[in-house]
């Protein structure tokens, strides 16, 4: 399954002698933290930036501005969906 929720990088880890080499990011979204590998990120993120994740790997790095717009939007959407009983007219 693909998740479209960007997670924020709170720490960068790893060194050349470690299994974690080349680099691992500790990421956070709504209190859930996870270690994510960075080999396939289109750009190595800085702490504070956001990444989109697939199967334990970051597949795309976003700037904070892009991510906040998206995170905010998703929260708003989620709130809206809950209030309205999912979506207006939804039967599930």
């Amino acid at each position, binding site marked *: 399954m693909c998740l479209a929720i960007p997670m924020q990088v709170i720490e960068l880890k790893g060194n050349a002698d470690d299994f974690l*080499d080349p680099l691992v990011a500790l990421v956070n979204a709504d209190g859930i933290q996870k270690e994510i590998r960075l080999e396939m990120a289109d750009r190595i993120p800085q702490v504070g930036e956001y990444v989109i994740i697939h199967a334990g790997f970051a597949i795309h790095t976003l700037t904070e501005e892009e991510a906040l717009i998206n995170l905010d939007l998703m929260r708003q959407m989620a709130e809206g969906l809950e209030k309205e009983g999912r979506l207006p007219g939804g039967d599930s």
Partner: protein
Amino acid sequence: MKCADEFRSRDITGPLLTEISNRLDRPVRIMEVCGTHTMSIFRHGIRSLLPEDITLLSGPGCPVCVTPASHIDAFIRAAELPRTAVATFGDLIRVPGSKGSLASARTKGAQVEVVYSPMDALQMAMKDKDTTIVFPAIGFETTIPTIAATLLQADRQGVDNFFIISAGKTMPQPLDMLMSDPHLEVDGLLCPGHVSAIIGVNAYRRLAQTHQISCTVAGFEPADILAGLVSLIQQINSGKAEVDNCYTRAVTAEGNLRAQQLIDEVFKPTDSEWRGLGTIMDSGLELREKYSRFDALSQLGIPIEAANEPKGCKCGDILKGHMLPPQCPLYGTRCTPLSPVGPCMVSGEGTCAAYHRYSDQGK
């Protein structure tokens, strides 16, 4: 169309739905290619909100669903080898091969472990050097680089008890085949989000041109999907066969070049069998010579033998957009999520499972 701007509105989905209704001036048939789109469309009740004149068809973008029975049988053979464990993505274990599934093999004593990432499978191998770990490497362009990166790591660490069964597949080739099918009426393609993050918007341009089909890349949230449908309807109305990008926060024109390099370093294209679709030229990936020591089939002597699909199962027609799940004679009777006959009823991303779980046609 600037989807990112429209997303800022608090009531974004309502106006998007109105926009869809207003713009629709004839019946349209749209294929959502990706299994995550299929699931999201059902989970959020989007199908029931759309005008009746929009028909949504599910495409071949569920990796578990398109893995043929012959490959499932090979995964099971690997799990039955002595001192060998199969470490697999969870949604694969209940998929039936010709005789059973990894789950049924496990009840008979085969060692099958569920992992979240191929890197977890490699870590299992590094922790327990007396056990051979085989990872069934299924997936599309999003997952394949994670497998490539894992093998490069195994190579760096000199791990000799970790193998894969290479069963990765690429998306443009089956889409090309489906769009060439004169019996399949589709006006537009809702293109996958994260596959597109890797291969880029440009990967669909030739498809759009060759088949004169409107394409839009979309993310997985309701607003993403509705915005994608608005974009497609606009294109269809104006007779355009272009590739729009409504998932700009993740997808660029060229895609993720580092991930593309990872795939290319470890794998090369090969012909591949798709469940229901048959063998499609250059649609699969095999290990390059340099990494063939990780190939479970040759190194552990596991054969891939032709296998029959489950009798009466219409997953093939469903994956090709020829049939909707309730039209299958097994659907909801012999084939249910608790006792699935075909892969589309097993996977969390399968069309039949989505129909059965969310639709009132579950019987």
